[in-house]
């Protein structure tokens, strides 16, 4: 579903992503680990078509994400670290607005269903988003992508700042989406969450993919050690 081949990107001579190769299949979750500045967000921005790679190619379900970004974006749902919604709108109004932008029209009950499916409690649906916690906003963010019938989910540090309960709910939700056939790329610092949710893990260091492994190959402790070793060397 997502194919990244030999992609490099630099900013004013500084290499942000170096010869990156990644493949995420349908129903698969890939966790991209790395320190700040490792190239995780740059990779996501290239997938979103907001940045063009200097070399290599990126495709989403076979569509060139750089040259046919509008087409590719229709398949992508994006959940940033902070889902900033419109604070003066309610949860359901935000979802409706973002759906309408994409030309999608849902009834009130359909919108309610989607918010519920994404874990937002029904009493929060009609509350203004200004009163929402970060986790609640993230659920609306996922509902926006879900309503769009996104086949690819890109998450940039989704668990950062979430309490354990909200973080756990997020993990469950992502697993559910993958089970429904979505391909998910999750950039994160949170090794344990990545180990728990993802099928595959990639470790980025200074723009290069230094390690790619299957989650089942390592325990949480081994992953932590591996990560620390890569970061130290």
């Amino acid at each position: 579903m997502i194919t990244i081949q030999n992609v490099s990107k630099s900013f004013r001579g500084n290499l942000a992503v170096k010869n990156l190769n990644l493949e995420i299949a349908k129903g698969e979750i890939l966790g991209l680990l790395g320190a700040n500045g490792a190239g995780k967000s740059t990779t996501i921005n290239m997938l979103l078509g907001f940045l063009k790679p200097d070399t290599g190619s990126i495709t989403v379900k076979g569509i060139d994400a750089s040259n046919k970004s509008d087409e590719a974006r229709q398949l992508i749902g994006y959940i940033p670290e902070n889902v900033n919604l419109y604070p003066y709108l309610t949860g359901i109004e935000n979802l409706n607005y973002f759906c309408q932008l994409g030309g999608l029209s849902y009834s009130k009950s359909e919108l309610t269903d989607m918010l519920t499916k994404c874990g937002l409690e029904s009493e929060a649906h009609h509350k203004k988003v200004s009163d929402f916690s970060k986790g609640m906003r993230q659920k609306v963010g996922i509902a926006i992508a879900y309503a769009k019938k996104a086949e690819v989910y890109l998450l940039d540090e989704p668990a950062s700042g979430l309490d354990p309960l909200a973080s756990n709910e997020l993990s469950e939700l992502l697993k559910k989406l993958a089970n429904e056939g979505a391909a998910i790329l999750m950039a994160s610092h949170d090794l344990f969450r990545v180990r728990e949710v993802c099928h595959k893990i990639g470790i980025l260091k200074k723009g290069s993919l230094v390690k790619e492994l299957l989650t089942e190959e390592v325990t949480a402790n081994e992953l932590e050690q591996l990560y620390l070793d890569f970061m130290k060397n």
Partner: protein
Amino acid sequence: MWTIIKNEGNFLRRNKILLLLSLGFVLILITSLLMGNKQVQQQSLSYETAKEHIRGQWESIKEMNPHSAAHYGTYVFKPSNLLSSLDEGVNSVTGNVLRVEGHVQNEIVHSEASQMEVVSKFGKLKSALLLQYIVPLLLIFLAFHTVSSEKQSGRLKLLILQGAKPFSLVIAKTMAVWLYGIALLVLVIIVYAILNLESITGEIVTRTFLFFLSYATYYFILTGLAVFFSVRWQNATVALTSMLGIWILWTIFIPNIMMSSVEKWHPLPSRAEFKAAMTEDRSKGIDGHNPSDERGKELKEKVLKKYKVDSISQLPINFDGIRMQADEDYGNIVWDKHFGNLRDVQAQQKASFQLGGILNPFISLQNTSKGFAGNDNLHHQEFLLQVEKYRRVLIKQLNDEHAYGGSKSGDWGWKADNTFFKSIADFKYQPIALKTVFSGYLIDVMLLLLWALFILFLLYRGAKKIQVV
């Protein structure tokens, strides 16, 4: 695009501070309109009363020597315009009463400003002041962060990812703020229409519509530019500072610099120079009250020859009336020459000032606003011209009566009767045709439209180069 406009509308509607601010502003706007309207109504009433009083005085002259009546003269009042409650233009400083008499062309007096105790740089609280200075400020404050806030919050990525096109987004943001300005404008016009429902004519509707279009275009220019800065700069503070800088340049500096420059490019003579030149030219003509005047003697010979007599006493008419009219005719030529030159220079000044609209659309707005409201210098000069035409007809009628009404030369005690004085028509101001007004401000209208197109182009370029990450 409509979805985004509706969402921006939600923001405006649900923002309590903005709602309170808007409500307060609407109250001030309506108050200013009510005050302006009341003043216009009072002025109209005073105008009618004074006009009737003066006409009554004229018609009650039982018998009087026509030339004495020419010196006695009459007064003409500048009618107040219904649209003055929207924009009083130059009216508060030009005066509205003019004494009409023989031998001299008086200046208009009794301006509102000359009777004010306190003079403010911005004048009194009038709708035009709010519409030209305060509404644009509100629009700037609403527009400067519209796109930058989306960028800073990271929502822009989400909006584009959801299918919003950058140009549609930028245009929708502009339209939403612009519609807020239009709502205020429409409110002013509706209140104005309700207050003047009985007096509204087709011409007033057209003038108000053109007035509305000028403001609507200017608001689009200003809002679009603020949104462009919001697109261009990541930092909202920079966008606001830039926009406020432009607002100050447009409303304070450039108009003043333009006015000073235009006065230098097309200088008007000083009052003393102008009067001296008029007096000098006037002295070359006939002195209507001096029989021994050389040019008067030439005229006498001509008249004696025409009537085939040897002396004035043999004339069947009163030569004094002919001599005084000849004096008037010469005076009129001198007036036409000097005031014609003055008007030519003023026209050049106006044309140059209008070109200032290339740099500053606020200049074009001010011109069209007072022009379409009928309170600009064009309308004022037209009033003065019509008064002068009336003065000439009036004085000629009086001199002709003196000459041919039945008296003999030197008979200064002869009097015309009441029927004669009643037969002289009162002054009636004919408003300028709207077509003439429109052609006088065509350049301003064109410049406003060109600015609007330029802003559209800027928004298009800005949207194309919008930085999402």
